[in-house]
């Protein structure tokens, strides 16, 4: 069993901010992440609202700098590592990874953030990258002058639609409600574009391919009738989900949506276990708020050790 003062689960801004603080306080700090360091920031094209940067900074660059800063103070990393077992109690905390090593610490900070929500319907996974996409910036040009679906009606769906409209022939938005949830100014820009039509109160139930077209089978939520529509591609933007599935068999208290409940000092219902960043139950989810949460949790740990 390898012993640390602090184990931080999640290498996004919250986790890395916490690691910078605990490492600088000379606490043995291990950061674990199932992917690489940076969280959602590394996949953000440009960050324009992080203080200290006059010009927007590329998300991957900001994330890379945070990681290097933590490493500079001797933070250890286990990246692309899966948690195979986890024990969190007031008295004892340990984590087992897929390399079969076990790690223990006096304090644990959970900072696993959130991820884009999947629809989890038949065909979604099968056609990822070959008809189903989650990124307009990346894949819009593959659909130049083609007809596509956009699934979702929130801010991300409408912002990505605006980008897609520069390439595609038409967009059919499929949305589960009778009105869009996006900010009015963005939603209006999309809905007033003649290339856009909207299928209200419908939810996709399955995707499949037919003669080089993608078919969406969608259910009318008011009548329960299903329609089948064909286009060239499907873009999905249906919000985020907290990365808390790994906590389900632990005593950590979660909200019904899967966010971790903490006190204002970021401590969970388990003594010595903290949560910071987007995984926390809170109203605002920004890089700056994640960094603030990470800092508070680290200072609490430093204070108690």
């Amino acid at each position: 069993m390898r012993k640390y003062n602090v184990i931080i689960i999640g290498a996004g801004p919250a986790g890395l901010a916490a690691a910078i603080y605990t490492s600088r306080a000379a606490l043995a700090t291990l950061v674990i992440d199932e992917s690489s360091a940076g969280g959602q920031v590394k996949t953000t094209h440009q960050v324009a609202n992080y203080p200290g940067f006059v010009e927007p900074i590329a998300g991957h660059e900001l994330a890379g700098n945070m990681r290097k800063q933590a490493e500079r103070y001797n933070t250890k990393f286990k990246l692309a590592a899966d948690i195979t077992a986890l024990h969190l109690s007031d008295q004892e905390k340990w984590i087992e990874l897929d390399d079969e090593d076990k790690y223990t610490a006096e304090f644990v900070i959970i900072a696993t953030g959130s991820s884009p929500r999947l629809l989890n319907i038949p065909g979604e996974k099968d056609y990822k990258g070959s008809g189903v996409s989650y990124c307009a910036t990346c894949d819009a040009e593959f659909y130049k002058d083609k007809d596509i679906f956009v699934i979702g009606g929130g801010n991300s769906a409408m912002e990505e639609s605006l980008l897609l409209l520069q390439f595609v022939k038409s967009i059919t938005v499929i949305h589960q409600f009778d009105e869009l949830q996006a900010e009015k100014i963005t939603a209006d820009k999309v809905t007033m574009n003649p290339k856009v039509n909207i299928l209200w109160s419908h939810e996709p139930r399955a995707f499949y391919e037919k003669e080089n077209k993608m078919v969406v089978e969608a259910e009318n939520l008011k009548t329960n009738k299903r329609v089948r529509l064909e286009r060239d591609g499907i873009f999905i933007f249906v919000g985020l989900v907290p990365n808390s599935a790994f906590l389900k068999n632990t005593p950590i208290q979660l909200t019904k949506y899967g966010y971790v409940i903490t006190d204002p000092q970021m401590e969970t219902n388990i003594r010595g276990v903290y949560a910071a960043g987007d995984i926390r139950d809170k109203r605002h989810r920004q890089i700056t708020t994640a960094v603030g949460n990470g800092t508070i949790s680290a200072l609490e740990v430093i204070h108690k050790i």
Partner: protein
Amino acid sequence: MLQTDLEHIESEEQLKELIENNEKVAVCCGRMGPMCIPVYDIFEILQENYPDIQFWDMDFDIPAAAIIKGLPECRKFFGLPFTIYYRNGKVVKATSSIQSAKEVKSVIDEVFA
């Protein structure tokens, strides 16, 4: 120009030489975009765990990338990055769009075991 710590393939000849002289090669062909960067990062991490595999990247917009875009395995790909796994000079797997570390490790276990 890709800003990664991986080695970059810059010509068709370089790719051909790479797959002729190495049994196991993985190439991630993309841009500095949100779906591509996580895969480059995962390749960088896995380089240490799999020293017998050559992990490289390739800019999707250089002329030499035509060799990847033209692969039959990529004919229906509409999502970046295109990730190609070669064994003994032949394509043994190709994936499109973002892949998690778990998915990449699963492909490696499947095709390079």
